[in-house]
């Protein structure tokens, strides 16, 4: 390596992608088991434990605080989905509740010193791909074949290429919004630690309060709100 590059590599900070824990070949394709996947398994275990604790031994009239908390959470998502998508989309409630909880706990993993799984474009991309297919399925279901095809040439036939690009721009924007916010938090925290050196006392805590807690919950909420409005606006009128 030339000396200029070596000097640049020594002094600066680096932001690495997720570590590859193991990789194996299957049908000629290499599958990598990355840090993100391991942390997501951990998140699934946390959520499973929380759900089992909250819903254990439920009564018709809530007696415990656990059950009241569980009911409040379900109530919150019911009202959020109903007010954004309307009553006829009540089948989507459990999905959006699960998605919100999963993304939020994933975002909060930075607090435990783990690498955020959502600071990995393949994780956020997979969430956005699910939304993309839900949009397509909802449009095909409400409009049947004719309405589905017609929705691409509305309002005028020459809009066809723009409509198709727009169809793929939505999941791309969803992916990059979550990914960009989480990576920005990671990079800015790394920069603050690098700049302060041994004097990193109070400032990183304040930054972490914003990036690891406020931004984490906010981005999860924004992700589900945008997914909901994309899905409900894909409905064909006739």
């Amino acid at each position, binding site marked *: *390596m*030339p*000396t*200029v*590059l070596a000097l*640049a590599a020594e002094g600066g900070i*680096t*932001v690495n992608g997720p570590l590859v824990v193991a990789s194996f070949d299957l049908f000629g394709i290499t599958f990598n088991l990355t840090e993100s996947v391991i942390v997501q398994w951990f998140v699934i275990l946390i959520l499973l434990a929380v759900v089992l604790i909250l819903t254990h031994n439920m009564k018709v009239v809530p007696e415990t605080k656990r059950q009241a908390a569980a009911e409040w959470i379900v109530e919150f998502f019911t009202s959020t989905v109903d*007010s*954004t998508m309307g009553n006829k989309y009540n089948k989507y409630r459990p999905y959006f509740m699960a998605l919100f909880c999963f993304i939020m706990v994933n975002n909060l993993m930075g607090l435990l010193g783990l690498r955020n799984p959502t600071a990995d474009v393949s994780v956020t991309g997979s969430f956005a791909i699910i939304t993309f297919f839900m949009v397509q399925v909802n449009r095909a279901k409400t409009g049947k074949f004719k309405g589905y095809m017609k929705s691409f040439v509305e309002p005028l036939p020459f809009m066809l290429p723009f409509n198709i690009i727009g169809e793929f721009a939505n999941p791309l*924007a969803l992916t*990059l*919004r979550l*990914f*960009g*916010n989480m*990576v*920005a938090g990671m*990079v800015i925290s790394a920069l603050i630690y690098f700049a302060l050196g041994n004097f990193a006392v109070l400032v990183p805590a304040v930054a972490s309060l914003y990036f690891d807690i406020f931004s984490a919950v*906010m981005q999860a*909420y*924004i992700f589900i*709100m*945008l997914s909901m*409005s994309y899905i409900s606006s894909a409905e064909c009128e006739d």
Partner: protein
Amino acid sequence: MEPMSPETMKILANAIVLGASALGAGTAMIAGLGPGIGEGYCGGQAVAAIGRQPEASGAITRTMIIGDALAETTGLYALVIALLLMYANPLLGNLIK
């Protein structure tokens, strides 16, 4: 002036690409202006709307958050480009041999 040796030229070329990439990454973040103006306008309008109709504050806040998120997108595109230039430089691959 003596002609440069191939080794020196390679180092010089790498230095130019690195410097230009750093400048490009910084310049890309000028795009942060747009989301700043957009989110400020969005927040200001939301405050005005809540002042007019305090009882609708829940719905207004929800809509404002969505608007903020959409305004933020272009800034995040710029951030992704800046990160690519800094940590996964596509231009440097052609030079280091």
